[in-house]
């Protein structure tokens, strides 16, 4: 017999005592569980009080009301998530606000118990949670080995790779069935779109190769003196045809002649991605400015544009794999969603930092600082 601690945070005393009463005589069994689970209920009337108990007693399950007198339920969730506490959280809520529900799910809540609830509803939720908690503990080891992260990466990757394949398949079936007419000219748009999707997929694969490359171990012999201005100039030449199409003017401002010890391929990845973004997310007739400067210990690269910009909310996830900011302005811009995450990984490989400042409709500035001194690449 194992006892699970249940903390209930709700400002309504009736809800708290109800939970205590219902769970005191309740136990959960399941064929593959080693033992029965029973419950010990701890009550808190506010989020602040709840956090105090959390720190002291470390409950296994948390039943959390969102609307609280002081800090809100989502704040408590955030607190738990930040500390990586192994607590299963269920929100006690009315279904009125799906937005809260979705945000809570993202922050780690796994269930929603409608308010008011019947004893049976609470019991079945707790049963469900107990089983999930049990499974979670079994899979904990797997997560520690980083397998889960890789798994999710692959899941999203499969999504990104399947979308263009679905599009191509659809167009080919359309042609196979001669659904838009007898003539090849009847299929001009599907053919053009298919070619564009293939190009998009090719870009994704190229980015993926970069992505894999930077994850592989570095060979010391590839590290050499790299002149920042030279690499930047090469990258500008690569992006130039696209810049001409967009009527974007690219300017390189070399304020200091900076040479660092690095693998030139890595520095190229940084410049290629950031300069092509500065063009891609710009306005027709806009400007992209690349500044190379240096402090005593660091190389400073500043890439700024006069483009569509990024909202403060969106900058938070900007460097996450496969995160693409989706809105009206980016709708027709294609990208793999890997570029910036690759740049960040490279920068971190060299113990550098990357910072972004942006104002929607005004532009974006990326600032990268890389140590000049030769360092051991990890």
């Amino acid at each position: 017999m194992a006892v699970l601690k249940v903390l209930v945070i709700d400002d309504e005393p009736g809800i708290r005592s109800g939970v205590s009463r219902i769970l005191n005589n309740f136990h959960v069994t399941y064929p593959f569980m080693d033992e029965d689970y029973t419950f010990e209920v701890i009550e808190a009337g506010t989020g602040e009080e709840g956090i105090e108990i959390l720190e002291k007693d470390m409950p296994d399950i948390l039943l959390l009301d969102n609307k609280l007198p002081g800090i809100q339920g989502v704040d408590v969730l955030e607190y738990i998530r930040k500390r990586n506490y192994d607590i299963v959280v269920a929100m006690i809520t009315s279904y009125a606000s799906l937005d809260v529900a979705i945000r809570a799910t993202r922050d780690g809540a796994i269930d929603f118990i409608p308010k008011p609830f019947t004893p049976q509803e609470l019991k079945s939720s707790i049963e469900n949670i107990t089983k999930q908690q049990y499974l979670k503990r079994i899979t904990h080891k797997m997560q520690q080995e980083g397998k889960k992260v890789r798994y999710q990466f692959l899941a999203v990757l499969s999504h990104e790779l399947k979308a263009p394949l679905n599009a191509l398949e659809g167009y080919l079936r359309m042609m196979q069935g001669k659904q838009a007419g007898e003539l090849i000219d009847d299929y001009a748009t599907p053919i053009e779109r298919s070619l564009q999707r293939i190009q998009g997929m090719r870009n994704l694969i190229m980015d993926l190769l970069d992505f894999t490359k930077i994850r592989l171990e570095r060979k010391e012999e590839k590290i050499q003196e790299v002149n920042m201005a030279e690499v930047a100039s090469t990258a500008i030449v690569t992006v130039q045809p696209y810049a001409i199409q967009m009527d974007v003017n690219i300017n390189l401002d070399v304020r200091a002649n900076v040479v660092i010890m690095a693998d030139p391929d890595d520095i190229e990845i940084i410049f290629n991605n950031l300069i092509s973004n500065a063009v891609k997310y710009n306005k027709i007739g806009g400007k992209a400015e690349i500044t190379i400067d240096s402090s005593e210990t660091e190389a400073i690269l500043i890439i700024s544009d006069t483009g569509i910009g990024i909202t403060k909310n969106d900058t938070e996830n900007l460097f996450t794999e496969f995160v693409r900011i989706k809105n009206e302005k980016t709708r027709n811009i294609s990208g793999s969603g890997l570029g910036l995450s690759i740049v960040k990984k490279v920068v971190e490989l060299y113990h550098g930092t990357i910072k972004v400042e942006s104002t929607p409709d005004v532009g974006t500035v990326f600032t990268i600082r890389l140590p000049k001194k030769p360092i051991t690449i990890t």
Partner: protein
Amino acid sequence: MNKSDFTILVADDDPDYLFQTVFNLEKEGYKTMAVESQAEAESVIARFKPSLAIFDLMMESDDSGFILCYKIKKKYPDVPVILATAVSHETGLTFSIDSEQDKSWIRADIYLEKGIRPEQLDQEIMKLLKL
């Protein structure tokens, strides 16, 4: 009732998927309304009641499809909704309505994997519209 008596709202930010879906539905005889974002879909729903809706899951945000399902069911509880996504079942990613727990708050009638054949899609639609 004929298929031409039904208007199907399709929301998807993949222009090719949208084009193909609408093309196939119209070929079957349905009327269609195509929108490329959650925002557009919401403004359509505010003014117009479709006979059935097909929503992509990930548009402006990862959960656009969920939110649209919720909003359309709130306004028109009797309109069937199909949630479509290219996220694989087998990856175990959380976007499915297989579990009872998910069903309790994801308000779609069925969940379809993208890449479904047009004939299959039509069969599912006919079932939902009781044709």
